């Protein structure tokens, strides 16, 4: 059984062949993965800092009915329709969660749980009744089909073929996210870490929150068909948390997303190539492995640096017993 599950590891067929025989599609898949991780990682830093990780999970699930219903009406993968559907679903999610926990005694966590499972169920029902095997597969919702991206129609701008459309869109979204973070850096920084201070400085705290939510929804919509609704959450959280074991300042956290994205994308692609499994899943497995490495070896709060037994090795460093790590 072992041989069956783990095919013999042949470095040539895993690492070299895909780049030699099918360079274009390999490059496109890796690029798509990179863009997905980049866009999600940049937004994800703020999501993690604001403790919205599970809200991100809820939103990514509840956008599904919006996307699915947009599919039913336009019967195509038209991005504007999907975005409108997703935006409606996103607003509906927020409104319903607020309604339930304001107007009844149900706690916010249960309200989130009820709303996102319901909307996701609506999405799955819509897909399995009207769309199954035609435009959108129910399973694709759960783990994406990034491997099929090279087969999609091309994006042609003034005669020049710029590769498959999803890649162009994902790249544009990643670029947009980065630009937004650069432009609104100060506001995002202060509102994420000290909302009280931001308010006293006259910063638009609520507007920033909703702006971030819209950017998050946009990113999730663009990434959804590549990696599915559950794994997109991993792309949001893993980069920020992993870099957090090496750096503490926000610029470093943001810059750290790029090399990690490349690592996830390449590592995931080759792992999937070896095991013949879902690429998106393998990307997250890579992310998980890197997280575990950082958890053990990261200089800021990594397990080894914290351990008493090995503490003497790092006695000179200040974070031998770092106060903010305790507890």
């Amino acid at each position, binding site marked *: 059984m072992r041989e069956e599950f783990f095919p013999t590891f042949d470095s040539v067929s895993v690492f070299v062949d895909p780049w030699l025989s099918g360079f274009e599609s390999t490059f496109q898949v890796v690029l798509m993965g990179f863009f997905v991780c980049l866009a999600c990682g940049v937004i994800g830093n703020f999501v993690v800092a604001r403790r919205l*990780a599970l809200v991100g999970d809820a939103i990514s699930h509840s956008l599904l009915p919006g996307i699915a219903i947009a599919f039913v009406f336009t019967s195509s993968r038209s991005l504007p329709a999907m975005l409108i559907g997703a935006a409606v679903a996103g607003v509906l999610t927020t409104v319903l969660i607020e309604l339930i926990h304001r107007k009844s005694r149900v*706690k916010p966590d249960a309200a989130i749980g009820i709303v996102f499972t319901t909307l*996701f*169920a609506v999405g799955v*029902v819509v897909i399995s009744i009207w769309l199954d095997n035609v435009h959108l597969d129910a399973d694709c919702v759960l783990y994406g089909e990034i491997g099929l991206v090279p087969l999609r129609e091309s994006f042609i701008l003034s005669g020049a073929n710029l590769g498959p459309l999803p890649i162009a869109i994902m790249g544009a979204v990643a670029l947009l996210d980065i630009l937004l973070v650069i432009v609104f850096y100060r506001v995002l920084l202060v509102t994420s870490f000290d909302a009280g201070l931001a308010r006293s400085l006259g910063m638009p705290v609520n507007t920033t929150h909703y702006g971030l939510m819209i950017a998050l929804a946009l990113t999730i919509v663009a990434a959804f068909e590549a990696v599915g609704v*559950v794994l997109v959450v991993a792309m949001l959280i893993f980069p920020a948390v992993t870099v957090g074991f090496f750096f503490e300042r926000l610029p470093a956290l943001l810059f750290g997303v790029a090399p990690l994205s490349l690592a996830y994308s390449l590592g995931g692609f080759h792992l999937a190539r070896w095991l013949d499994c879902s690429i998106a899943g*393998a990307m997250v497995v890579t*992310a998980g492995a890197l997280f575990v490495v950082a958890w053990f070896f990261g200089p800021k*709060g990594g397990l080894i640096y*914290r351990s008493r037994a090995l503490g003497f090795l790092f006695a000179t460093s200040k974070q031998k017993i770092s106060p903010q790590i305790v507890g």
Partner: protein
Amino acid sequence: MKVLRTIPVFVLLVFFAFPALVHAARIGDVTDTDWGEQTFRFLSLRDAAVRNAVLGSVFMGVSCGLFGGYVVARRLALFGDTLSHAVLPGVALGFLWSRSKDPVAIFIGATLAGLLGTVVVAWIRKTTRVKEDSALGLVLSGFYAVGICILTVIQQMEFGNQSGIDKFLFGQAAALSSEDVSLMGVVAIGALMMVTLFNKELLVTSFDEGFARSVGVPVEFIRYVLLVGLTFAVVTSLQAVGVVLVSALLITPAATAYLLTDRMGTLLLLSALFGVAGGLLGSYGSFLGNNLPTGPFVVLACTSFFAIAFFCGPKHGLASKWLRRRNRVRQVSLENTMKAAYQVLEAGDFAKESVTVGALAARRRTSVTEARREADDLVNAGFASMLGSDDAGPRYSQDARLFLTPAGWERACQIVRNHRLWELYLTNEVRYAADHVHEDAEKIEHVLGETVVRHLERILKDPRRDPHGKVIPSLEDIERGSGLSTNPASATGYFQQN
């Protein structure tokens, strides 16, 4: 916990009630596959698959509903979601190990994966600065990704394709085997036993952990037992509702029950009932739609129960709350009108028996039309009767005369008494300035009950007059209205000349 004992009875009832229909309904045309026929097939329990699906839904509803009560009470809803995703690699490994859909192997694998996920969440939180939500998200998506990878590998293998392993993602109640169902039954019975045995401990640790610790309840042990039970419930429900949506079965029925009751025992009973009903409706729905995935239908059924309770629940429902508020507003408005009528009568030293609508309007500082409407409301509520000018048109509305009925007089006296007593209490006992007490009394006059009034009267030594020198209506005044008292020594003097 008497209510809990009724759950097994209910389970048995459902079990016996459905086969009874087989004899009641005639066996119709079999070739037709419209929804009526499908419904009949479902209800008659003719197929083994349907029987398994129904029994499975019942067991699933009981175990998830019971544990869900504690999930909601302890605010573990998002933890439940994480747990349900984290079991996926265990499901896949169990499948890989047994090379078939062997329930026991899958059960063991999934339980281990779920417990490992729990441990990892706790470990991340203990050893790092990562916040709880991120820790849950990491485990949720990381474990899930491992599961997806193994699952997609299995689907490439020769035995994996026809295995129905993909049914674990969205659930398929019709694919339950009898071994699956008996495993679910064991877990449901275990859940029932656990809830009955540890009822007191679970209750006290769920709501006041500090107190539980101080009275010597093994809090950690109870939490551990609960987590293991929760994992069992999630794992056995996987095949019927799927990995992604099983958390809804933990949260929604319990949240629905939470809207309907304040007692934990009733909550657990209702939660299990909603879970069972949602499971049955869901598997019926998926059966109707030619074996669509069950999970989404179960979730939608549970959510519709929640929506009904949310809007129409007797105590906490939105519609009920709105109705109650509207009644209160109407009551306050009626009482204010009666109070104004009393004050008009008082201004004339109770020489007249009636109040004109014009005088009422002047007193209430509203238009005559508005005062007329208020007077009509009073008449409709039986607190007053009206004489004249109905046919003369709205122009003469202000001359219409309003007579308080005995009930109206009684309530008006009570309201005025409450108001003035409270003003006196604030000035004499709380030492408020006399010009600051009116607004407060305006609010409290509508809610003071007789017990508090007696108490105030005792504190204030049966006062006759309020801080502004106005007479406080006495009990005699109130009772004269209903003809209970013939004592002529009333404070206001009203009715004496009648």
